[in-house]
């Protein structure tokens, strides 16, 4: 080999080394993270291999976190001009900024339209995190997931959801002792078929919650009772129990509301109007109304037991029963309509809300 060829060889090696150094450096500063040939800049890369999970997620409210018209509305995030809403509605990977109740999410800059997406939960320091129990197929997957047990832990949900104290509320309930976690209700088991034809149990990525009437129906039980009141009057007592949610109901202190509307009906069918003042909430109809919500409390105040509740907070703790009394004159009314209306925002009208209970009671 001539000296010149040797020099060229050495030079090429040196150039390659220099190139590697540059690549290494830029590789750590770039947001274009790649793992096993998969570009992890955005979750769009996940769709081709995980079409079934993608499809579930696409139908979830997580997928709509940044595009839901209700969130975009002027009096809500105002198309996210209220920037403090962005971190939870388009989070950068939570595993990369810390999980648990004391950690916070950071807003993602790119592909915010995907809302709470695959990489929000699964990207981990530029790699892909998968559930602790991995199949042989997942070990051979192009994205080469590594196991992170925390993916199944409430700690993963906490950076966003504990900003509204939901994880605190769950911790204060009997659910942790019973071994019931977020996943048991919001990510139920589903059967999946891997690329090699084997089946395994995975978790649904539909994340049902307050937007799902079926979930709402499971959250509470309602019963009524008639009691004697002073003089010749009677009381209709409505008991609402948070029998199915492992956190306060309605959850999310700032936005959700649950209105119990009782309408007394005269024998001729005429509804008895309300005598209550209309403030502070928009009221539309019904003889009496109770709102389950915590509307104005300080954002960072933790509410996990009844003693801590301010007088305005009427959320129902997990397992708790709250009652509401409506006095009536048995000679003047014959029945009552009892409705429970779930509202995603407190300013929704009754018709915009979801009627999760609607029954008539003979008085």
């Amino acid at each position, binding site marked *: 080999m001539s000296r010149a060829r040797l020099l060229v060889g050495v030079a090429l090696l040196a150039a390659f080394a220099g190139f590697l*150094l540059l690549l290494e450096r830029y590789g750590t*500063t770039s947001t274009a993270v790649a793992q096993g040939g998969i570009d992890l800049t955005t979750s769009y890369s996940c769709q081709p291999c995980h079409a079934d999970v993608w499809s579930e997620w696409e139908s979830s409210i997580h997928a709509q976190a940044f595009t839901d018209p209700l969130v975009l*509305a002027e009096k809500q995030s105002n198309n996210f001009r209220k920037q403090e809403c962005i971190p939870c509605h388009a989070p950068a990977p939570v595993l990369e900024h810390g999980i648990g109740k004391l950690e916070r999410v950071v807003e993602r800059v790119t592909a915010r339209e995907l809302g709470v997406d695959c990489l929000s939960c699964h990207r981990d320091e530029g790699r892909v995190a998968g559930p602790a129990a991995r199949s042989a197929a997942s070990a051979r997957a192009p994205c080469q997931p590594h196991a992170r047990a925390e993916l199944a832990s409430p700690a993963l949900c906490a950076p966003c959801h504990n900003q509204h104290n939901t994880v605190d509320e769950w911790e204060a309930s009997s659910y942790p002792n019973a071994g019931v976690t977020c996943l048991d209700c919001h990510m139920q088991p589903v059967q999946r078929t891997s690329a090699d034809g084997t089946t395994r149990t995975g978790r649904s990525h539909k994340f049902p919650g307050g937007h799902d009437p079926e979930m709402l129906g499971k959250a509470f039980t309602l019963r009524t009772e008639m009691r004697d009141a002073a003089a010749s009057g009677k009381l209709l007592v409505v008991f609402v129990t948070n029998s199915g949610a492992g956190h306060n109901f309605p959850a999310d202190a700032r936005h959700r509301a649950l209105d119990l509307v009782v309408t007394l009906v005269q024998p001729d069918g005429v509804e008895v109007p309300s005598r209550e003042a209309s403030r502070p909430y928009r009221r539309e109809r019904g003889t009496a109304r109770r709102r389950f919500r915590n509307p104005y409390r300080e954002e960072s105040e933790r509410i996990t037991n009844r003693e801590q509740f301010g007088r305005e907070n009427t959320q129902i703790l997990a397992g708790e029963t709250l009652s509401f009394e409506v006095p009536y004159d048995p000679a003047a009314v014959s029945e009552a309509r009892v409705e429970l209306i779930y509202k995603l925002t407190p300013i929704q009208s009754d018709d915009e809300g979801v009627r999760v209970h609607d029954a008539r009671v003979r008085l």
Partner: protein
Amino acid sequence: MTRAYGSRRAARLAVALAAVALFCGCRREATPVPATGGDGKEDARPFTPWHARERPLPFPQSEWYWQDLLAAAPAPEPLPSEPEAAKRLAAAFERVASLTDLQSEEELPAMVADARRDPAPLLAALDDARREVRHAAARIMLRLISARRRPEGCPFQQRLVEAAAGHLRDDADEVALLHLETIARSELPWIAPILLKTFGKVDNHRLTVLRIRSAAKLVLARCYGGMPVLIRALKENTSIQDDVNRDWDASYQTAWWKEEAMAAIAAAAGSDFGHSPDVSDADQVACVHRVEQWWRENHVRLWSESPAIDDPALVERVKLLILGFGTFQSRNVDNCGFILVGLGPKLAPLLLEALSGSSFMIRRHVLGVLTALIGEVPESERASWIEAVTPSLSDRDPAIRVRALEVIGASRIATAAATLEKALSPEDVALCETAMRQLAAQGTREARSVLERFASRLPPEHLLAIPLQAARLAAGDLAPLKEYLQKLDGERGPDPKARMYLSWIVDADGLSEATTPEERKRVIAQVEQVIRGRAAAMKGSEQ
């Protein structure tokens, strides 16, 4: 040229290139990059220059009232104790409990005298369940603090301010308002964060008049962090009302709020801009626009004339607020960023110093505060801020790099444009998108040219293609308008991404409320009109 000569030449060239490559590689490696990934990982620096990382952050992390923290007096005075006076005062509070407010006025002079001798029953009365008692206590406190400049003086004013600030959430509006008055009348420099916290967000539970009055007190003390709230208050019940107006904000006191707001604005401006809550909507809107115009033209000057932030107690509070960024404080409603922004640009030395700390969250939030404040200082000072944040552009964490670029972009000075153009590279999509947004906000001919050049290099299907179109439209370049509007008017509704980036271009798009295709077409036509008008205005101002 012989073949041997050619080989030797090629070999020399290869060696030279290799040397260059190695040099470049090593140089990049040697670039100082803060060794922080998440919150201070592998970093021995203190959380902030003033707080050691060995000590855990001292705050409860999810149950926290900034108001209570800020209420604590920095040097509370020893309280006098005189059992006889205390006994009389306690008995007087019991009498007051069954009197009307007017009847109890007669009791107050003697109660004030006893409170001077032993204020313990007074402070205890603030927590009494009976409104009449708390109301009397608040009135006594106001009398005591008001005597500060009179011969009788006020021997324990810090204690009074502490007590008032700790009870600003009193259920009775009249009591809360008296406490606010007590705090403001103390004129202590460290009360500014307390007042700013009072109106942190328009939609919290706070009494609206308390928030507006707090803002007014601040402006009267030449802390202009209250000005945006006052301007919002003037918009109430007009066609340009801001998001203050919600169902639960509806009030018969709106005209009163406006008067409160205008009194403070007029003190700063020397004019009431022809304000009246009784004139037509058009006249009220015109008045608000005059106020906004005045504020745009004068905010930098007013802030430069505001008092220095050098009171040791206030400086300590600022450091504490900065440290608080490292706790569970993510949103504007519960983080202290708005308090620091409200204190104004004279905070800059402390904020820039805080960038040398290790905490990712603290640096991230501090950069956010600097972004909000850099436009409040004269252009001549902005370069030094940029110099101080430039090292953060090399931070390992993309969120820090993005925030640093936002500070630079928000400076709106000519030298920043070069940094923004340099960041326009798909290599770092987050930084690139941020650069586009900042260039869009510049809205200058140069910014349009830079974006156009970048558009010619970016593949049409690239992840950044839609934000780039939005940026160009926002900067006043109408070339992508037709294509962009088509994306908003798709068969299945507006393209979510195009809809999303519309917020770069127009203040409110109305698409959420457009439920039918016809309504959407109408809204899109309005959007088009706004975009065209905006572009014309930009080009007009350049001529």
